[in-house]
């Protein structure tokens, strides 16, 4: 009995030990999460189908066209067009095709509305670049075929809605003609094309929609010229502003005759406020102009009589017109008032009467309303209801209906600029411990279920219960720091200037903050966020402080505009302070020093090459002074192909005494010959990377010392001719040169030329190696190369006795001014995919072996063991090398389908991969972002230091109990046996003695 139970245990154990190589199906979603976004909506079209699901088709600034569920905001389908395929217009044709015009009006596509399949695509060429318009008339027929009218690249096209065939086209070749509007008067077969020519000429073309014949061409000249856009107030009237922005021109072209009227704005508004611009809208009879502070709505009465209907100083957004019946048009108007927004829906011809007036409470962190799209529906009482889709300043998308926010999408997360992480608060007394343990019965039940699952006794319902239990595990989404360091906050900065904190457990938004410093203001016209840095990471003597991040931004696209710093608390999401700098920010250098409150020192380099120290405290200054002569940095001038090294010189010698400002000097320069080389990639090591061991033991018990320097820079240059598209040059005139440059002394440590190769180059630098990816024109394949760099100056430290007696130079400080004795090893391999991003896993202590994370062209993340990129690989490794783990050399790197980190998912528009070490050495956290977000945990050498998530504690418990029971049983058995033995011995002895005594008595 006991033996049998022993065998059973062995069976149990062997089944539970079976190793886990990759993800199983039921582990999806356990440690990873995936979020889908679309980006800031540019244009929205509501599907007016009566039957079927209500949907809205949107195009976004991330070049996504998507069909969203109007009830919940979920994505039905979505297509990401290429980065240079910007969407110019979308519309719905025949009620079932989504028509998109993209790439500057040169590609017209039609998609099936229900499932998003592409129906046709046609390419439209034209004589010159121009504005593009897409018009889908409802009643324009041509041989039972609905027509699409597209104006693009200076040519007017009529295209069949069914198959995308161009039916006719008409060129507008006049050199200076700039199209402003294409008008289709309803119920006629005419197309009006209006525009400006030679800055002061107004042109109107009348075209027959059936065949593209030019019917009429009129022009009139206006001496005052035009500025900005025109607003269409009726099918035969447009309003424009003159070049000074102070006179309104009302131009009507009834019956092909141009007549006009000029009205100075000062006539309409008493206190004129500088130049105005026209807000584009298509509401008939009404247009809006905006000056610096005031928005004015003006109604056009009759022929050119203007009347101001409203003047407001609030921020305002207007939707396009929506025709609700034959002669009625409605439009939506949104006004801001402190924490609320007021939505009004009005009829175009009746300004004072409101169809709808609602107030909606709006989160201040969403900022202003940027766009409004209106849609109507029929209420249960058969009256008209309106809902509006609004796009906010933070790029989020909301649907308002009946005075409520029906749904919202945080689409700002589709355009992440920078990512950093922050620890969660430590669990303290009073913070409730995991709720899981509260109910012992529940806990036991859960584990019994898991046990059943392990023993394959579970029914499908049980399996579902197990799965949902695992996914919901509240453990991973708690708001406190965990022992393994899996729970963190991902702080992301989006293009809209909003900071989000995402929880790594389930990806939910913990807080979000629209940076006030990134608001448009007098001083800062078009602020843009640049980077995120960890400002304060409390650990030693500032435990009670909250960690904070530094957001660096500047007031304009060019690098010499002044910068803005904001400091944001990562626990609360509140801005601690913000600084408007009086200098520009060209480069930010986080220094490896912290002051007494654990604030990290940062050096900001401005456009005049002055260095500014932050934080501006005396403590920081004294720390900085101590390390003054040991601070070096470099700058890359991409245009000139020059890399320069800098050091600090002395205090600024300006007129204003600023003790935190320092002059700099150039120490070295590397000038790439402009006729043969152009820099395309520069990569350094991550600042916070940890290297566990400096030495590498190779097969024959030999030691090689890694050349580990934080000051190494990898630079890739290509021939200027070969910097274009792949295939634009022949292999003979294209080459790629890889450099390893020491950034303190400017020494070129390694320089190697790949002939017949071409960019784009994606590279990653870690420890003492760099891996880069490029295209080999000769082999017509992508290639990846590795360079490892080893230090020879310490190669003598192999003798154990030297190490024991301390006669080695391993602990002596290293100066980069010594002449380096390095050797490099490199190897190249073919690789199938082209890449979008490349990263390397990083762990807490750097012991775990590394994996490369490759963002493939299919928007997936592939993990590739670094061992495949080991320059010591040979075709036939010796036995010793094999034991060391060297893989036989193959010409190409393998792509193992199981090693896709993103498994079945895609991170659409993948832009970056970020790895963060967890506290558990074996595990690294991976965050991939693009239009979508994806997060997971990776264990490159498997989780050797912890039990896996699905480890069955109940099984362990039962095993222990059973073992204890078995010990008891066997103990009892053996005791019984012992007793028996004793008895038998006794009785044998006794019988023998009686026998002998008998015998004796016989004698």
């Amino acid at each position, binding site marked *: 009995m006991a*033996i049998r139970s*022993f065998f059973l245990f*062995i069976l149990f154990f*062997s089944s539970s030990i079976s190793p886990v190589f990759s993800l199983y199906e039921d582990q999806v979603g356990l440690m990873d999460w995936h979020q889908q976004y679309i980006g800031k909506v540019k244009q929205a079209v509501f599907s007016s189908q009566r039957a079927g699901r209500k949907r809205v088709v949107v195009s976004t600034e991330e070049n996504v066209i998507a069909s969203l569920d109007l009830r919940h905001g979920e994505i039905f389908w979505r297509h990401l067009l290429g980065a240079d395929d910007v969407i110019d217009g979308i519309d719905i044709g025949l009620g079932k095709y989504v028509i998109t015009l993209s790439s500057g009006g040169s590609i017209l596509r039609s998609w099936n509305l229900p499932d998003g399949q592409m129906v046709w695509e046609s390419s439209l060429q034209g004589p010159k670049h121009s504005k593009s318009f897409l018009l889908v008339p409802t009643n324009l027929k041509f041989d039972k075929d609905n027509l699409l009218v597209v104006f693009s690249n200076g040519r007017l096209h009529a295209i069949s809605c069914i198959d995308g065939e161009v039916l006719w086209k008409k060129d507008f070749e006049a050199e200076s003609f700039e199209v402003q509007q294409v008008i289709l008067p309803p119920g006629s077969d005419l197309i009006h094309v209006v525009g400006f020519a030679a800055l002061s000429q107004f042109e109107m073309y009348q075209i027959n929609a059936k065949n593209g014949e030019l019917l009429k061409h009129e022009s009139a000249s206006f001496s005052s010229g035009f500025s900005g856009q025109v607003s269409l107030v009726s099918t035969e009237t447009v309003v424009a502003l003159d070049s000074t922005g102070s006179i309104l021109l009302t131009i009507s072209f009834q019956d092909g005759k141009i007549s006009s009227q000029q009205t100075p704005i000062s006539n309409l508004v008493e206190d004129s406020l500088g130049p105005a611009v026209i807000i584009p809208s298509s509401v008939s009879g009404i247009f809006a102009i905006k000056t610096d502070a005031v928005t004015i709505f003006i109604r056009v009465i009759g022929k050119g009589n203007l009347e101001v209907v409203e003047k407001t100083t609030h921020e305002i957004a207007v939707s396009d017109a929506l025709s609700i019946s034959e002669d009625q048009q409605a439009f939506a108007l949104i006004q801001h008032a402190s924490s609320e927004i007021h939505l009004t829906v009005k009829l175009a011809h009746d300004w004072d009467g409101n169809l709808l007036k609602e107030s909606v409470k709006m989160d201040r962190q969403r900022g202003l309303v940027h766009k409004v799209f209106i849609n109507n529906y029929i209420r249960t009482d058969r009256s008209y209801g309106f809902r509006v889709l609004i796009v906010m300043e933070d790029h989020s998308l909301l649907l308002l209906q009946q005075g409520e926010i029906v749904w919202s999408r945080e689409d700002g997360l589709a355009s992440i600029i920078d990512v950093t992480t922050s620890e969660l608060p430590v669990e303290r007394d009073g913070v409730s411990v995991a709720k899981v343990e509260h109910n012992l019965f529940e806990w036991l039940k859960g584990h019994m279920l898991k046990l059943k699952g392990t023993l394959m006794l579970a029914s499908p319902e049980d399996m579902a219960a197990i799965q949902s239990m695992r996914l919901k595990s509240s453990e991973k989404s708690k708001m406190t720091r965990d022992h393994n360091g899996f729970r963190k906050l991902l702080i992301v900065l989006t293009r809209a200037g909003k900071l989000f904190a995402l929880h790594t457990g389930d990806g939910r938004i913990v807080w979000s903050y629209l940076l006030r410093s990134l608001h448009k203001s007098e001083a800062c016209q078009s602020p843009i966020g640049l980077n995120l840095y960890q400002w304060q990471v409390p650990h030693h003597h500032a435990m009670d402080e909250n960690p904070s991040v530094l957001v660096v931004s500047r007031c304009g696209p060019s690098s010499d505009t002044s910068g803005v710093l904001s400091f944001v608390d990562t626990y609360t999401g509140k801005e601690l302070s913000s600084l408007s700098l009086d200098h520009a920010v060209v480069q930010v250098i986080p220094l490896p020093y912290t002051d007494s409150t654990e604030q990290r020192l940062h050096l900001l380099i401005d456009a005049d090459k002055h260095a500014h120290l932050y934080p501006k405290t005396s403590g920081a200054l004294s720390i900085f002074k101590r390390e003054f002569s040991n601070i070096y940095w470099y700058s890359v001038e991409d245009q*000139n192909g*020059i890399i*320069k090294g800098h050091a600090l010189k002395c205090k600024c010698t300006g007129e204003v005494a600023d003790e935190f400002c320092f002059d700099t*000097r*150039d*120490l*070295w*320069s*590397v*000038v*790439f*010959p402009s*006729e*043969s080389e152009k820099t395309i990639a520069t990569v350094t090591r991550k600042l916070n990377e940890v290297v566990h061991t400096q030495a590498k033991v190779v097969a024959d018990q030999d030691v090689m010392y890694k050349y580990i320097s934080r000051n190494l820079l990898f630079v890739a240059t290509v*021939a200027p001719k070969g910097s274009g598209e792949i295939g634009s040059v022949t292999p*003979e005139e294209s080459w790629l*040169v*890889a450099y390893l440059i020491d950034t303190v*002394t*400017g*020494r*070129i440590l390694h*320089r*190697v*030329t*790949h*002939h017949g190769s071409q960019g784009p180059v994606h590279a990653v630098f870690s420890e003492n190696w760099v891996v880069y990816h490029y295209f080999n024109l000769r*082999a017509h394949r992508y290639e990846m*190369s590795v360079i490892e760099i080893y230090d020879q100056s310490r190669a003598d430290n192999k003798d154990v006795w030297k190490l024991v007696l301390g006669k080695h130079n391993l602990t*002596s400080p*290293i*100066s980069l*001014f*010594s*002449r380096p004795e390095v050797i490099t090893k*490199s*190897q*190249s*391999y*073919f690789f199938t995919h082209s890449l979008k991003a490349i990263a390397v896993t990083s762990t807490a202590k750097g012991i775990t072996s590394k994996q490369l994370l490759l963002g493939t062209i299919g928007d997936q993340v592939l993990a590739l063991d670094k061992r495949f990129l080991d320059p010591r690989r*040979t*075709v*036939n490794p010796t*036995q010793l090398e*094999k034991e060391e783990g060297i893989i*036989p050399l*193959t*010409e190409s790197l393998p792509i193992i389908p199981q090693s896709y980190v993103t498994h079945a998912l895609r991170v659409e528009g993948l832009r970056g991969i970020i790895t963060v070490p967890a506290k558990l050495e074996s595990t690294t956290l991976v965050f991939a972002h693009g239009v979508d977000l994806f997060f997971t945990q990776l264990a490159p050498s498997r989780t050797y230091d912890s039990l896996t998530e699905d480890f069955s504690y109940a099984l362990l418990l039962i095993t222990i109990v059973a073992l204890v029971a078995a010990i008891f049983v066997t103990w009892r058995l053996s005791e019984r*046996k012992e007793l*028996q*033995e004793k008895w*038998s011995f006794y*009785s*044998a002895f*006794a*019988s023998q003695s009686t026998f002998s005594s008998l015998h004796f008595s016989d004698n």
Partner: protein
Amino acid sequence: MKWVEVIVSFILTLSFLSFPSCGFQSDELLVDDEEFGLEGAPQHRSPEPIPTRSPPVTSPTRKRHSDLDSDSKIQFSLDHAFGDSDFSPAGTFSARLKTWSHGGQTLTKLRFSRNSFSDVEKEKFKNLLESDDFYRIRLPSNVLSPPGRDFIISSVKARCLPRESLDEHFVIHMEGVNVLAVNYGSPGSCPYPRNLKLPAKWSFSSHTVLKNSEQAPRAPVFTEEILGGENAEGEVVQPAERSFWAKYWMYLIPLGLIVMNAITQAMNMPEEQATGQVPAQGQLSAGAVQRGPSSAVRRR
């Protein structure tokens, strides 16, 4: 298979051999010793011919010399600066410009003549040593039309240079007639707490090395061996196959122990019964039955 190995090892050894040759066959050039001026480091030629780089657009030397594989002498100057002072001439490099038949131009036979320090310069250098400041040098980025686009600057802490004399080491990275970068420093190490040490001799001993780009190792191509490849793979895999014992010894040993334990247990059981029977007989005969009827008894 074998010959690929040979070729690979040959290429490897070639590349390994050729690499240090740049570092060690340096063209040491002593200023005072014009006669013994050694040649510039032999240009690293990889086994395959390097495709032509676009030659400089304006090359006055090519006009001057009608024949193609021609040599011409050129000179370019080295400037130096003490700390943040302005640059002043410090020496002259002279070299032969070799024009290859395919149009490329390279420098060979680099010589360097260093001007010795004047008294003012000595004083300046002493100041540098005292303040542990930088001694900076610069070269033109194009040797034919100096200074080219910009000067190539390099600097070193002055305290790294003095030994017996002032020892300096130049590694000039060239690309045709363009100077990419110059690695300037002491020929040996410069241990970190830099101590103030004045040179015994105020003369320079200079070492210069010219370096051109190396060619990257090609990605391995096994196209000829598609058939043999499988074999080779099989060969590779087989030795990796370990014996059953080698793979599972850690499971087998405890299993064996358990089995042995079980066997002894099982051996003991009948023995126990057997030993139990003998005394039972005795007991029976003795009439001293203490236990209930045993199975052995019943079997009787």
